[in-house]
């Protein structure tokens, strides 16, 4: 059991990430040696901690907004009275996810100008789609006998939603949230081009000023941020699927990575059921 513990990725990812976020200046000699032409060797526009906090805040707030809108719309689409809207909402989610995230970000600029606001809008809009899609799929996947039994026992519609449908749909909904958040971390980095203060700033600054070391510094931090977040979601997924038979839990052979972001690809391969 303890050997398994040490293979838990969070155990080494978190300290590694913390090191880069807080201790980038410590790597000064390394970057000075590798890229002698770049002065100063470490990106000095803002501390990486500040950049990460802005970035995380932007992703967190927009993800929360996406969550509320996406799950809300998904619930409406699966109620008897909202049933009519389900097909068109699913179509909207599918088509919308065909739009490249960077295009959605670009389109937000004419509407809202520059800065954090268009980035926030683009992140929220784009994040709603996978969450909506997965909420509908998850709620629709609740076995009919379970719902019938719940209704027959005298649970109100609200109780059925809260105690039966949502808990059973939670793993699928969580997968949608995971996709939305991971994509948003990347899109928020690109948001630096429209003036949002994020971890993309050193990358963009480095690309524009031909300072490769800044690009690498920014890239390492944002990449680790994404990987760490994905690992946290995987932990959460495991916890939520405790009640399932071990076959149904799809514990992937060889580790947690397999069922991560690639789950989106897998879901589309097998037609949405994951």
């Amino acid at each position, binding site marked *: 059991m303890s050997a398994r513990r040490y293979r838990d990725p969070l155990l080494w990812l978190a300290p590694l990430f913390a090191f880069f976020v807080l201790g980038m200046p410590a790597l000064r000699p390394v970057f000075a040696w590798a890229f002698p032409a770049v002065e100063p060797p470490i990106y000095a526009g803002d501390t990486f901690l500040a950049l990460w906090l802005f970035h995380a805040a932007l992703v967190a707030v927009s993800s929360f907004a996406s969550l509320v809108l996406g799950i809300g719309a998904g619930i409406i689409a699966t109620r008897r009275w909202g049933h009519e809207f389900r097909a068109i909402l699913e179509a909207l989610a599918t088509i919308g996810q065909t739009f490249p995230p960077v295009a959605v970000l670009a389109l937000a600029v004419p509407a809202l100008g520059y800065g954090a606001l268009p980035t926030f809008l683009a992140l929220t809009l784009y994040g709603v789609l996978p969450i909506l899609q997965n909420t509908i799929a998850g709620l629709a996947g609740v*076995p009919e006998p379970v719902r019938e039994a719940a209704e027959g*026992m*005298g*649970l109100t519609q609200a109780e059925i939603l809260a105690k039966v449908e949502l808990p059973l749909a939670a793993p699928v909904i969580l997968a949608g949230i995971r996709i939305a958040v991971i994509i948003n971390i990347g899109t928020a980095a690109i948001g630096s081009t429209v003036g949002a203060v994020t971890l993309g700033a050193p990358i963009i600054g480095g690309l524009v000023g031909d300072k490769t070391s800044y690009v690498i510094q920014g890239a390492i931090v944002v990449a680790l941020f994404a990987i760490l977040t994905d690992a946290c979601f995987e932990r959460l997924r495991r916890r939520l699927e405790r009640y*399932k*038979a071990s076959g149904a839990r799809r514990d992937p052979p060889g580790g947690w990575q397999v069922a991560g972001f690639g789950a989106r690809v897998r879901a589309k391969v097998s037609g949405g059921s994951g």
Partner: protein
Amino acid sequence: MIELEGVSRSYGDRRVVEDLSFTVEDGAFCAIVGPSGSGKSTSLRMINRLIEPSAGTIRIAGEDIATLGLTRLRRRIGYVIQSGGLFPHWTVEDNIATVPRLLRWDEARVAERVRALLELVRLGHETRRKYPHELSGGQQQRVGVARALAADPEILLMDEPFGALDPLTRQALRAELARIQEATRKTILFVTHDIDEALLLADRIAILRDGRLLQYATPQEILTRPASAFVREFVGGAALGLKLLAQRRVRDHLHPGAAPAGEPVAQDAPMSEALSEMVLRGAEFLPVRDAGGRIAGSVALADMLR
């Protein structure tokens, strides 16, 4: 007491249930039987208003259920379905405790009730921490029954509860249900397409066909005086006589005193079992043993014809 009066249900032009009227006494076991598509499940689900009748009235204890609050009505009625419908994300304990917790019983009372019910359905106490997927089909249905009985409802509705199980488990659960009914004296409405199951368990049987009630009577009466040729065929046709025999117990035809030698037959066994033994042994008389295992007397082939 459950009273159905002129109950009908249509979907557009399609009449699924038509003019259904009968009464189920308190503590009675009423089986609703019929071929597929006869409206059995629909009738059952009109009683807890999962489906609303298009016409007619249903009364429980004199009250028109249409006037009662939906959730309050359903919390007074236990409901068991064929696939169990156990909540997969809750333990057995949480499943059984569903309605009591909805009714805000305190936890101590809930725990005690769960313990008592697990004992009633003959499941070990350690089952309470398991998840439904860890149980066999038969065990899941036992939990389903326990869950339905949790809040001590007056009425139990069962929609082909043993349909998805293998014959051996079905047999065992039937016996359990009979025992539970004996112990708790609930009013049970039991839908099945298996007439033998109905003949075995029910005090009264309602035979439906194409949404209409063909006959509502005791098993004895249905076997001896079927209301139509269809009922006769449905209930056993050529095997009617044997089924009638199955309704009688050996103890009702016991001749106390001396008995022939050989393996005795239990006095609680149906007469059809005694007949089967007689055929196998080629004997006209069989010894009978009582519940304690002592020889109580004998039973004769001639008794079969009385």
